[in-house]
């Protein structure tokens, strides 16, 4: 079972990788669309959530969210059944 903190790190790492963005500058309160260079990067991140977590609903759910924390809470609850 993953801990909430492990999931936070996982989400941040995925964003840093997809956006080619410094990991240490990504905060739980960071706005994901602000970190993305453009909509193509944003789209690719949404796809990678779907693939990495093998959750078909991840695209349509995550796209409605704003911050890294929102996405982490969603994945923690819906993928791992973990709450903060």
């Amino acid at each position, binding site marked *: 079972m993953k801990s909430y903190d492990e999931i936070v790190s996982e989400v941040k790492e995925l964003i840093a990788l997809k956006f080619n963005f410094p990991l240490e500058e990504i905060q739980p309160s960071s706005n994901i669309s602000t970190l993305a260079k453009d909509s193509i990067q944003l789209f690719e991140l949404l796809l990678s959530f779907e693939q990495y977590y093998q959750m078909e609903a991840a695209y*349509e759910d995550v796209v409605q969210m704003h911050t890294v924390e929102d996405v982490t809470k969603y994945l923690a609850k819906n993928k791992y059944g973990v709450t903060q």
Partner: protein
Amino acid sequence: MSYFNDLFVLDTFTEQTKLFELISVDDVLKIPVDSFLSAYEISLYDLVVASKKDEWLAGRKAAKKCIVRILNSHGHKTEQKDIEIRNDDKGVPFFTLTESTDSLLIAMVNGYTSSISHCEGFAVASVMDSSEGGLGVDIEKIQKFKTGTVEAFMNKQEYDEYVKLEPLEQNKWATVVWSLKEAYLKAIKQGLRVHPKGISFSKNTPKNTFSHIVHDNQKAVPASVYCSIYKEEFVITCIKI
């Protein structure tokens, strides 16, 4: 003639087009911000992340040029800094007036819809009376897409045709298809909240109009489309639905 050429007749880009305003960031940076931004917009500008500041500014300038041109053509002498552009909770831009008691003018300004796009040193914007429908613009640099990305945003028919193309043609057409889908998604005010794969285009006559279908079983909606290649480097799209 490839499937894509046949479906989307690309226009030759003309600087004179009145459909939208195209502005380079370099040109906007020569102009003092307080000559076209309101005090509130300057406070928003200060909050924009450093990497997006210049393009944000260019987008504001382009949209303001469009609306002021329209208002002037209706006999309303308005300055760019009197018009404020804000974004609603979905990010959609809208206009307000900073200081005016002229209720007719206020209603008129509120009744226009705008679409803004920025990319690598340029911004485009277009403005239309919202009673006429939805409006979406997009500017995109022609680029190589990852195969998985193309597979994810193109529908089956588009992808089957795309894989038959030469690599350079693939870059151009993938960018065109992405840009058309993004402009359409802005016209329906959703952005990527609606998955681009579900959008498909079919051609109508006359030239340069198509009907699109959002998700397989929905009704086709007619649209006017302008799509062109700018400086051999960018795709610019403007869609009215």
